[in-house]
């Protein structure tokens, strides 16, 4: 897939079909990749595809001016469709280089299983349904389900549905929904007071770095509500009350547009389980409105489209 990607990217730039290519390149740390945004066809040899391409690159689409050729995994392509639904992009201005994705490896899960940090590992490779970790010369293997990101475990559409070029063979869906929703189910079983305590503790670690908001492709507001001072919706102080309100409001703002890519949770430097909120929001939206974000680029955006026949029974 990598070679095909490099060739496609180079051709797109050479033929002037796109102004920029957005993909992944080898990162500066072990087992890490970094986004590569370039208009230079000579850079196309730096593009990579491997089990560590975690980022959702569609977050850059709302800031790059011009036509973009973008590398998109299954989840990423849903974000792109969601952006098209929101009228932030036109389909013609994006060339989607689809990557059928068998799941991305979560390094923190590997670290926990092996008991060593990522820079102390020699190698991590995927071999079918196993992941082989080499530490100090010795190999250990783990079932793949133990090291993939939570949202990859329940991924329904790992092969992009919307694409211009599909860089590899379609990948079957991993339908282990249970593992993906494990944390949420656990929370639902808790009595209210315990759940409140849980979130209060989690959000007391929040430092309001806004990484969750900035990695999110759905958060493209020029001026976020936290940056408003008239009126001041919430104070910028990183206290658990404000932090919790920030995240709850953010979730409501992205409802119907969040595609459960899991980037918010991955980006959080203090390990707040944000996906427990966003995934639950995603499921709620599906339950209430029969709408899954990012599936149909011609559909109207859920929260901003109004039909006269809509339900009004909740209005008292």
């Amino acid at each position, binding site marked *: 897939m990598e070679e095909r990607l490099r060739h496609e990217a180079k051709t797109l730039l050479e033929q002037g079909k796109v102004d920029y290519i957005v993909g992944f390149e080898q990162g500066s740390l072990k087992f890490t990749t970094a*986004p590569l945004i370039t208009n230079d066809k000579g850079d196309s040899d730096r593009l990579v595809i491997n089990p560590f391409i975690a980022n959702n690159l569609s977050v850059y689409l709302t800031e790059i001016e011009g036509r973009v050729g973008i590398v998109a995994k299954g989840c990423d392509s849903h974000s792109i469709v969601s952006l098209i639904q929101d009228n932030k992009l036109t389909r013609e201005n994006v060339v989607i280089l689809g990557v059928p994705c068998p799941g991305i490896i979560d390094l923190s899960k590997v670290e926990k299983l092996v008991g060593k940090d990522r820079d*102390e590992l020699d190698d991590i490779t995927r071999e079918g349904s196993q992941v082989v970790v080499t530490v100090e010369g010795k190999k250990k293997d783990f079932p793949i389900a133990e090291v993939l990101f939570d949202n990859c475990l329940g991924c329904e559409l790992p092969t992009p549905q919307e694409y211009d070029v599909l860089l590899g063979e379609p990948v079957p869906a991993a339908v282990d929904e249970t593992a993906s929703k494990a944390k949420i189910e656990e929370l639902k079983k808790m009595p209210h007071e315990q759940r409140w305590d849980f979130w209060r503790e989690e959000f007391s670690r929040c430092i*309001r*770095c806004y*990484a969750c908001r900035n*990695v999110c492709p759905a958060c493209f507001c020029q001026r976020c509500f936290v940056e408003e001072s008239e009126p001041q919706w919430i104070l910028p102080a990183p206290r658990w009350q404000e932090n919790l309100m920030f995240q709850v409001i953010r979730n409501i703002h992205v409802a119907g547009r969040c595609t459960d890519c899991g980037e918010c949770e991955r980006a959080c430097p203090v390990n707040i389980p944000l996906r427990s909120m966003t995934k639950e929001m995603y499921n709620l939206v599906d339950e209430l409105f029969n709408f899954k974000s990012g599936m149909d680029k011609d559909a109207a955006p859920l929260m901003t489209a109004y039909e006269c026949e809509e339900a009004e029974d909740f209005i008292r």
Partner: protein
Amino acid sequence: MADNRKINKKDIGKLLSEWSKEYAVFVPSREGGVAKMAKWDGADTSFMNWYRNTVVPAKSIFLPPVEEMFGFQKGKEGYNIELPQSDERKQLIFGIRPCDAKALAMLDMTFKDSYQDPYYLSKRNNTVLVGVSCTNPYDSCFCTSLGSSPGESTDVDLMLTDIGDEFFIEVVSDKGKELITTAGGVEEATETDEAKAKQVKETAYNKVTRKLDTESIKERLMPAFENQDYWEKTAAKCISCGICTFLCPTCYCFEINDELVKGEGVRFRNWDSCAFPVYTKMPMENPRLEKWRRVRQKVYHKYQFYPMNFSVIACTGCGRCIRQCPVNWDITQALNSLPARL
């Protein structure tokens, strides 16, 4: 070197308990899986087996993420202003790494310069630093390129080095001497102990693989200031969050806000970041609206402007910015690939 001591690792718990009588003791702790300096619970010493650095740096104790500056209330005669009750208790930070300690020394320069910042300085003057040298640097560490090292002891009061079953203790300052002279479980160190400690430090030094050529960077920095192409390319993947600046031990930018609840309230300060677009926003314009200007500002503030004012690079090579960045933006890459001077 009669000042050098050692202590068996088994006795650290007792030592900390002894110190706890006089000091509020902070140790590296894990909260929700995130390592930071927190009040010692009085029992758990497992942090001794954990040889790496915290996610949130020790600066959070001196410059907390949110801090009350004063309270105010409207009485019949007008406004009354009240300073918060200060915790007079002395503090002791155990397990601070050389990079974070050096960063504190650097922050001191800003908070002492011209006007003294009472909140930061009162905490700083009240705190003793007991450092523990690194034995296993991350691949993101680059302290050795910035005048520090995994075993650098200049900025702490006591420096402990792991020499097997024991910690070798260097007495660095008078505060440290006071601390250790009456401490229980502490013996005099031998020359073999000293040699072992030196060896440990050297091994750790050689493990630091990430390098910066600061001399070459110094020459290439100012000529590259106006190079918009370079900075646009370098800044392209940054997402303008605050992770690098908040977790950086030398970053100190803050904003001041008020909170009002029913006629009384507080003025507080909280962490702010030059990476945020609204950081320099004025009513009519924003000089750093474009992302590349903000990324450039962060690099230059640390490697050019701070040295111009205080003769020291405002970076200690702790590598947190590289490790925690969601898009792997790497300051060493950005600096090392500065265009060569024409």
